[in-house]
Every structure is written in structure tokens, then in C-alpha cells.
């Protein structure tokens, strides 16, 4: 382990809020500062600018709609309901690099491994790229679906761009030639809510959908290799007979191949393990939450952070010990972040949150 490695951690206020805040925590720096950025302070698009059809631009809020780190953690980008795309550099310290404007509200974004571009997926089904090396440059239209995009991902080598829409489709295109569709991963029966390329199995794609399944794909050929019926696996503990398991969050850890998911309206984190040789997902255990879970994120070393709607314990930290996940309470970072949230609970209370490690 690299002793000088920074642990980058941010809590971002997600949809439903009137102002947005990002917190960043770095350690083991001596100056354990929290970086706080209030999005409502960022410049807005000038009013009076008419949209393409001659109508005035509608007034949005400062809610953050999507955010992501670059794979190395050097950059962070977010997009909000006011159609702003804000880029931050995180090293040597957090600073805002640029504020640009997108055409339509976005649902997801991803930064290339080369850290030269941000790809943003929007509600009209389009993906635009925004340069990082030229942080003020306008966006460029890369590809489009007919229906609303819910998620966008890149293969680890940036070669493929994957897009998931509300009409059950996952499309795989060449990043350098996005008009060229390599394959479709067909099989989901409802909107595809989340997609994730497995970093240490770079031919595999994990997807989640409103059809209550998690699926593994060999995405270059579009072949489905495993389908996990969540209602069967997690079902026995369900409260309602026809409970839907719509995954709202997926996080993956290369260390151990763990997959953790959060489903809408279910206060439980389900943990699976990827068997890369057999190309199967194996259900391991669940972590019941006393309160609604907002978000989950694995850090590189394998610890799992959980953000929940609870003033007493807004942040939970879990660690795998002999294959069993146990809560950790004596972590300094955890205590510091929890204290900050508790001190400012009125700001956070009742709102939805996101987590990125």
C-alpha cells in the first residue's frame, strides 16, 4: 500500500435539494480539510437566451443530477438541474476548473481513463463529449438513442462507449466512431437503470434494470452470460409478495470482486461476489439498514461506505472479515465525516444524497 495515497471521498447532495454541497475529505494529509462547494454559487446561464424553438429557457434548480470521478481520482465532474457541467481538479487540492452549459438535463456522466474527455448522457437520448484538456470548449454530439438515456459507461481502455436507455436497450459503440454500433446487449424487459464495466474483467458488463434482474454480459458480442433474478435471491425477505427490485445503485470492488447494490425503497444493501472464471454472480449476504439508504460506495481497499438517512449514524463503514461483512466504528475518516453531517443535519435532513469514493 502506498502510504502517500490519498483517499478521496465526497458526499454530494443529489436530486431534491435546493442547494448543493460537495464535501471532500483527504487523508492522510496533515491538513485534514473538508472541501465544500456550494453549486448555487456557480455562474448561471444568462437568462433571456432562447432555446432552439424560440421558447425561453426554463428555470431549473441547483440539484445535482449526476457526478463522477475520473478513474484515477484526479478529476471530478458534476452536472445539475440548471444544465451546468462543472469540472474540478482534485490534485494538488480541490479546485473548480470550469463551468459549462449542457443542452439538456443529464442523467449520467463518465470520464475517460485517458482523462481527456467527459461523456454526458442526457434526457433526450444524446451523448455529448466535453474536453478536459480544453476545459472551456463546447460539447460535441457523439451519439444518440431515440429514448431517454439512464446511464453511460466506458470500457477500461476507453475503446467502447456503452449507453443504457429506458427502452430496455444497452448499446455498445466504438468511442472513436460512435456512429458505429458494435453490438446491443438485448434481454432486459424494462428500462436499464445502471451499467458498469467490471474493471478487472474488462470484457464483462454488469447491468441492472426495472425488471428486477442483474445481468452479466460479454458486451462486445452482446451475449448475456448470467441473469440474476433478484426477486428469487433477495425475495424471501421481501415485505410485499410482488416486490420489485429496481437497483438504484451499484458499486464494485476489484479486491474480492464484490458487488454491492441498493434497490429503490428497500433499506438493505445486498452483497454479491463475481466469480470471474464461471462468469456468475454469487449472492453473499445482506446488510439491513434501519433507515433508508441513500448511496453506497466501495473504496479500493475493499471497505464499503453506506450513506443513510439517519442523524445518529449517517455514514456506515463495513469491512469484510473472513468473508463476513462487519461494521467498523473506529475509523477517523468515518468519525470526522459523520460529525460534519450531524453538525449540519438541518441542511441534509430530508434530502437525498449521493456518495462517490
Amino acid at each position, binding site marked *: 500500500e502506498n502510504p502517500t495515497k490519498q483517499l478521496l471521498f465526497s458526499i454530494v447532495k443529489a436530486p431534491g435539494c435546493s442547494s448543493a454541497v460537495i464535501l471532500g475529505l483527504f487523508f492522510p494529509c496533515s491538513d485534514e480539510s473538508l472541501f465544500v462547494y456550494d453549486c448555487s454559487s456557480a455562474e448561471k446561464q444568462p437568462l433571456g437566451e432562447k432555446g*432552439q*424553438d424560440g421558447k425561453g429557457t426554463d428555470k431549473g434548480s441547483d440539484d445535482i443530477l449526476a457526478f463522477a470521478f475520473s478513474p484515477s481520482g484526479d478529476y471530478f465532474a458534476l452536472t445539475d438541474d440548471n444544465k451546468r457541467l462543472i469540472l474540478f481538479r482534485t490534485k494538488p487540492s480541490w479546485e473548480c476548473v470550469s463551468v459549462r452549459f449542457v443542452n439538456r438535463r443529464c442523467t449520467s456522466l463518465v470520464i475517460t481513463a485517458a482523462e481527456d474527455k467527459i461523456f454526458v448522457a442526457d434526457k*433526450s*437520448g*444524446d451523448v455529448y463529449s466535453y474536453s478536459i484538456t480544453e476545459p472551456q470548449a463546447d460539447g460535441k*454530439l457523439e*451519439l*444518440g*438513442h*431515440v*429514448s431517454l438515456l439512464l446511464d453511460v459507461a466506458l470500457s477500461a*481502455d*476507453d*475503446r467502447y462507449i456503452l449507453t443504457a436507455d429506458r*427502452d*430496455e*436497450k444497452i*448499446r455498445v*459503440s*466504438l*468511442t*472513436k*466512431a*460512435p*456512429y*458505429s*454500433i458494435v*453490438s*446491443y446487449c*438485448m*434481454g*432486459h*424487459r424494462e428500462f436499464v437503470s445502471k451499467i458498469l464495466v467490471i474493471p478487472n474483467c474488462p470484457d464483462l458488463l454488469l447491468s441492472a434494470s426495472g425488471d428486477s434482474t442483474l445481468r452479466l454480459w460479454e458486451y462486445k458480442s*452482446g451475449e448475456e452470460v448470467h441473469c440474476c433474478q433478484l426477486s428469487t435471491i433477495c425475495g424471501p425477505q421481501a415485505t410485499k409478495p410482488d416486490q420489485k427490485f429496481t437497483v438504484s445503485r451499484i458499486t464494485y470492488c476489484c479486491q474480492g470482486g464484490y458487488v454491492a447494490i441498493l434497490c429503490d425503497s428497500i433499506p438493505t444493501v445486498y452483497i454479491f461476489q463475481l466469480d470471474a472464471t464461471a462468469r456468475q454472480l454469487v449472492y453473499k449476504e445482506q446488510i439491513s439498514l434501519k433507515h433508508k439508504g441513500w448511496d453506497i460506495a466501495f473504496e479500493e481497499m475493499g471497505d464499503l461506505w453506506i450513506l443513510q438517512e439517519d442523524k445518529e449514524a449517517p455514514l456506515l463503514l463495513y469491512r469484510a472479515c473472513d468473508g463476513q461483512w462487519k461494521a467498523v466504528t473506529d475509523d477517523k475518516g468515518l468519525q470526522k465525516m459523520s460529525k460534519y453531517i450531524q453538525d449540519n443535519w438541518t441542511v441534509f435532513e430530508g434530502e437525498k444524497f449521493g456518495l462517490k469514493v
Partner: protein
Amino acid sequence: MAAEEEEAAAPPQKRFYRQRAHSNPLADHTLSYPSRPQDMDWAALFPSFFPPDAAPGTAPARVEFVDVGCGYGGLLVALAERFPQTLAVGLELRGKVAAFTRARIRALRAARPGAYGNVACVRANAMKHLPHFFRRAQLSKLFLLFPDPHFKRTKHKWRIVSPAMLAEYGYVLRPGGLVYTVTDVPELHQWMLRHFGEHPLFEALPPAQLAAEPLLPLLPSVTEEGQRARRAGRAPNSAVFRRRPDPPAAAP
């Protein structure tokens, strides 16, 4: 299906299949479509091409021609006669129009056994469902005859030719495959020329090959829409585009 066949061996009459001309392709119509191409039961649509006693190991027949927005089936009937061994499917979004065309094909098959078994109409939304029905590089011909112009600027995203749709046509068409477009609306013709022209996967057929293209003279008049345009004195504009080879997989 069986009951329908019994009652409707007679040719259908349009007055029983009235429907508004414009349909919203972005709406969620209740349509049935396969989850994946391999789940589609083509044998039900083309029974004569899926004999139960086929030798094991023979590759199943596959659709090669698609008429996007087939309307009342005029092109399908012409394709059935000219390419009797090639499977052609018409996709039509409007329920009653699709039902009319299915009834029309049924009547033709009944009147001439052994003929018209290679064409069928499916009620589907081509803008959303192409990858559900067809595999990569499956098709050799795609037809866009008299597409709905959707004149208003706010409706342009309903147009069947757009950068998003061209990527999908590029996906289902094999390299060398052809797209035929015909319209009596000059602005729409320019729109299609521009979009196909700008798209790296397509090239316009050079004039020499265009002149030699046997289907082209037929297309403006073979459909209801084409005949209506001709009666009104509106000239048809045709174009043919070829699907170019795939770009080399980009180096990282």
C-alpha cells in the same frame, strides 16, 4: 391466428381499417416485440420457409429486406413477386394499417397457394425495435418510402431519418447493403440526402450504379402513398445509399 385466417381469405377493404395518418413513434404503444432477435418466431409469419421436416443443421431462413413504414403493403407485394425466395418484412406502427396489410397478404396467399409466403407485416415501432427483431448485419435492403415528413420543427425528432436512426440502420444492414429512399416532399428529400451524406457509414450510389438499379423505377409508384402523390402531380425524389464497410476498430 387460425380464426383470423378462416374469416379473412377475401381481400380486405380499406374502409374497415381507417386510421389517422400520423403516429407518434416516441409514445409507448402496446406493441408486442421479441426481447432479442433469437426469440422472434419467424416461422409463424413465414410457415412455408420453416418446414418442420427441414434437415438438421440447415441454417434457418432469415429476413433480408425490411420496409420501414410499409403502410398498406404495396412494396411488399411487389417484392414478393420479384424476389420470391427472399424473406421481406414490413414494419408498420399504425395498428389498423398493419392489420390491413396482414389481411391483404393472407388473402393473396389464399388466392395463390405457394405464392406470397415470403412477405409479412409486423406491427412494430421501427424507431425503437430494430435491434429487437434483427441481428447485426442481417439485412441486405432497407426501404424508406414516403416517410411521414413531420413538418413541424418540434416533431423533427419523430422523423425516421436522423443521426440516431442512421446508426441503427448501419447496424442492421450488412456492408454493401442498400437503403432506398423516396419522397414527394422536396425538403424531406434534402434532409435525407444531407443526413445520409454526412454519415460515415453510408455513401450515395454513384449515378452509373443508380441507373442500373432494377428496383428504383418501381418504387415511386408501387405504394399507396406514391400513387396518391402521382395523382396530385407531386414528383417523387428517389435516392439509394450503400452501407460502407465497418471502420477499423479504433486502436486504444
